[in-house]
């Protein structure tokens, strides 16, 4: 009996361990080792921190790094700002069929691949695209307007791509807020903004934090959207990693960059949890 129990547990846990070990832990250890190598000659390597040093000493790398972090935080904040009312409406105001329909509408864009979705934005925003044509037709612009290849376009793409990952945890937490609690707030003299601040947001905090973490990670690690909507000069950190690995065959520096990205995201997530007083168990459980 005990043995059968143990066997069942092992069978269940093995895929997880394989997944974690083979795809995450071993590659990361290997990448860490690669990042500590310095090429001193053809086929000759020495262990050093040279890659990390060049990351710190080269302003372009640091600026790109900081820019990616700031833009990702902004994209997360923007997604939260847009997603919260949407989630509140779906969770608390919509009823029955309308509710499922709205939820489905949030989900539908994710049935097509990210590539196609991004191309959709390019069709809308490019010089000969829909927005440009409408502006010219309405007389608001007298020449074609290029709306692609700038930071705003990147932001639009990032927010659009991550919306679902913000809305779903928000709906889940807002759904668990008893309507009577909101009514009690009104009954005791609360106004809309004060109820939002003192009752709804504190209750939704785990959802807000978990949604923000996911969106932030997705934005930080996004490659496709910044490259396609921001163009070659979008200066997204993942692009730097890509070019080190693929274009310049400098795996050592690329690995160091990869590690810096991992550290950055971990630090920011940890900091957010600390500041908001949430724990990982509470937000993910």
């Amino acid at each position, binding site marked *: 009996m005990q043995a059968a129990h143990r066997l069942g547990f092992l069978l269940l846990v093995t895929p997880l361990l394989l997944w974690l070990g083979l795809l995450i832990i071993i590659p990361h250890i290997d990448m860490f080792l690669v990042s500590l190598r310095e090429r001193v000659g053809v086929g000759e390597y020495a262990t050093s921190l040279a890659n990390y040093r060049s990351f710190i000493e080269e302003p372009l790398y640091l600026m790109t790094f900081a820019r990616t972090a700031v833009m990702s935080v902004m994209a997360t904040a923007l997604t939260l700002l847009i997603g919260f009312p949407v989630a509140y409406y779906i969770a608390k105001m919509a009823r029955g069929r309308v509710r499922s329909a709205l939820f489905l509408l949030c989900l539908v864009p994710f049935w097509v691949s990210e590539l196609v979705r991004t191309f959709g934005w390019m069709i809308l925003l490019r010089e000969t695209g829909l927005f440009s044509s409408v502006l010219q037709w309405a007389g608001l612009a007298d020449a074609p307007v290029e709306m692609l290849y700038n930071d705003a376009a990147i932001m639009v793409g990032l927010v659009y791509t991550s919306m679902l990952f913000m809305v779903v945890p928000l709906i889940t937490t807002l759904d668990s807020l*008893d309507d*009577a*609690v909101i*009514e*009690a*707030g*009104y*009954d*005791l*003299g*609360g*106004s809309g903004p*004060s109820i939002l601040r*003192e*009752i709804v947001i*504190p*209750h939704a905090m785990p959802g807000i934090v978990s949604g923000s973490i996911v969106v932030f990670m997705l934005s930080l690690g996004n490659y496709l959207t910044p490259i396609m909507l921001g163009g070659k000069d979008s200066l997204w950190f993942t692009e730097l990693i890509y070019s080190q690995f693929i274009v310049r065959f400098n795996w050592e520096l690329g690995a160091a960059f990869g590690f810096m990205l991992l550290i950055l995201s971990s630090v920011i997530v940890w900091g957010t949890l600390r500041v908001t007083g949430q724990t990982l168990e509470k937000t993910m459980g």
Partner: protein
Amino acid sequence: MTQPDLACTHLTKRFGDTTAVDDVSFEVPPGSFFSILGPSGCGKTTIMRMIAGFLAPSDGDIRIKGRSVLDVAPNKRPVNMVFQHLALFPMMNIADNIGYGLRRKGLPKPEITHKVGEVLERIGLPDIGTRRVEELSGGQKQRVAIARCMVLEPDVLLLDEPLGALDLKLREHMKIELKALQAAFDTTFVYITHDQSEALVMSDTVAVMNAGRFEQMGAARDLYYRPETAFVAGFVGDSNRWRGRVESVDGDALRLRSDSGLALLGSRHGRALSDGTTADIYVRPEAIRLGHSPEEVAHFDNRLSGTVTSLLFNGAASRILMRPIEGSEEIEVALPQSGEFAHLERGSDVHVGWSSDQGNCFAAEAG
């Protein structure tokens, strides 16, 4: 004549084709405990939500201390509500929960602290201010929910079946405590419930509600002993019910032949019932006297003999079911706890009797 704290006139609420509340009028004098008693879906919650301001009436008026509140938003009305599941704010501690309304009024901090301390003292839980909501027991939460409203000194406190979630023992205890709190705060309570014992024990006035209308409004004792409608007779307390034809009417007294063939004497208490109409007669189990011999019940004008078919032991509220020789339906009779019927068992011969005055007759409803 003092002005009523709460007065509703011709209050009506329609949802599409259904009328949830149908032309209800009542007044609640200051400092009294008013209950609305009715089965679920009778419209009592709708009335309460209209008073609190969460629903707008389709017709009629609600006045609080003489002033119509129809155009006053719920957060500005001088009424507060204790919700069915209490709706304490789980994200705040007890003191913040109680202080919420005061903070919204913009009171200075020291005054809020003082008032919160005072009301916690009054509900007998002085040291729980810093605790979290989930650390409290059911009864404590109940008291905190009331304190959270009372600290705002509302003109009327609405209570929406607040005892529903408690276990039986605590519920019995809270009934007494609620009544005591109402006396201590000297505030008008409007209480809605489907539990008749809650309404009967606590209230000064009870309104029995059915299908959107008030069937009867009065003191608990009047509702119980002098129900005005068949619904009240059936809903409040237990009753034996026979349906039959009225054979003769003499003043208030009447004679009815039940469908099962029993000849019963009852009273119509001023209701219109004439010979030949179909009527229901309601007799309370505790209005029926149990006897070992026919002589013991000889002074009653309704007498039946039969055998015990079941004993329903329930402590002080024990009953027996007996089947009369002449009829087929079983009759529920209260079992006196004085000991003389302690040896009663299934199959024993018993004799029962009751006064015709205790048999409330109503015209049978169609169907």
